């Protein structure tokens, strides 16, 4: 039998989300000061919003359903965002206050850097994969937007 969701569970869940809540605030603050278009890709943007301390990044990774290593590689632009589930990329984008267009542009920028070096994959296959990922990304983003309190 699963444990009932009581006050203790609630507080535990809140503390798990503390880093994500701080990330949401930091993302919005940064976007107020600096336009999303000035970032040279998703990794570049992540690097400016993610916490520097490894413990913070690890807690965040758990809430975002990625490994801490994947998050670090995304941040360092060492991982193609298209290799991460679109739902996770959409969650990060939604959390930090990016618009779907801004998120898509950043993701494509990072992805293109990877595809430039990929001689084994035909351009057509890359385009098809990108199109399918971006379509999934948009759907996931739209779904998450329904949980936003912005229109309340």
């Amino acid at each position, binding site marked *: 039998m*699963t444990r009932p969701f009581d*006050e203790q569970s*609630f507080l535990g869940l*809140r503390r798990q989300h503390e880093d994500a809540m*701080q990330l949401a*605030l930091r993302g919005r603050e940064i976007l107020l000061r600096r336009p999303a278009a000035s970032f040279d890709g998703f990794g570049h943007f992540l690097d400016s919003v993610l916490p520097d301390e490894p413990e913070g990044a690890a807690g965040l990774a758990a809430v975002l359903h990625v490994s801490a290593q994947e998050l670090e590689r995304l941040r360092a632009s060492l991982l193609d965002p298209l290799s991460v589930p679109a739902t996770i990329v959409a969650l990060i984008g939604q959390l930090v206050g990016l618009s779907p267009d801004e998120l898509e542009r950043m993701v494509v920028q990072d992805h293109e850097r990877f595809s430039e070096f990929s001689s084994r994959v035909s351009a057509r296959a890359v385009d098809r994969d990108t199109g399918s990922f971006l379509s999934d990304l948009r759907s996931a983003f739209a779904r998450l937007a*329904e949980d*936003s309190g912005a229109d309340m």
Partner: protein
Amino acid sequence: MNPHVFKLSLLRGDEGSSQDRDLEWLRVFRHFDPRLRDFFGRRDQALPVDEIVGEVWGRAFLFISTLKDTAALWSWLTAIGNNVIRDRVRTHLRHPTGSLSESDVATAAEESFVRAWIDVENDIALREDVQLLISRLQPTDRELLRLVAVDGLSHDEIATQLRLSSAAASRQRLRRLRVHLQETRKSGRAGQGATASKEMKE
């Protein structure tokens, strides 16, 4: 201090220590959790209320920075809950577990949306009222409800499916349905069969 006024800057994390934030969130939890359980739990156990409520709180933590006013907390939490239920219905329809029938989960999702539309925090609609309201809908309104609550289609997709002129027409149709349900509930006419499509033809 009004016990039911919550400080958004503390909830969002703009100010206060982690302990202050814990305490403010705990106040929110104590106020809303029993209401959420009541709201989402009246469905013959068709959906696991403990899991749904836990998921609602998790999403509330993630997206609290988007909320502009704590007066909207109740509407927001129930909207999230409906989204959680719709996600579960979709997953269940894609990967049936055999524990619930397709119709049980779809009906639960429909009821949940209608309850959110007609309810205010202190006016808990009885499950029978909601079922009666739904059962009296015209087939076109019922189909619209199903497309929104169970299938989760966008207004563009609904317009295509229902052969409406545009997404705006779909939004308008849904608005009429909500008003119709709210007014029918208020006037206690659930059993009289008036419908949104009949009352307000495009």
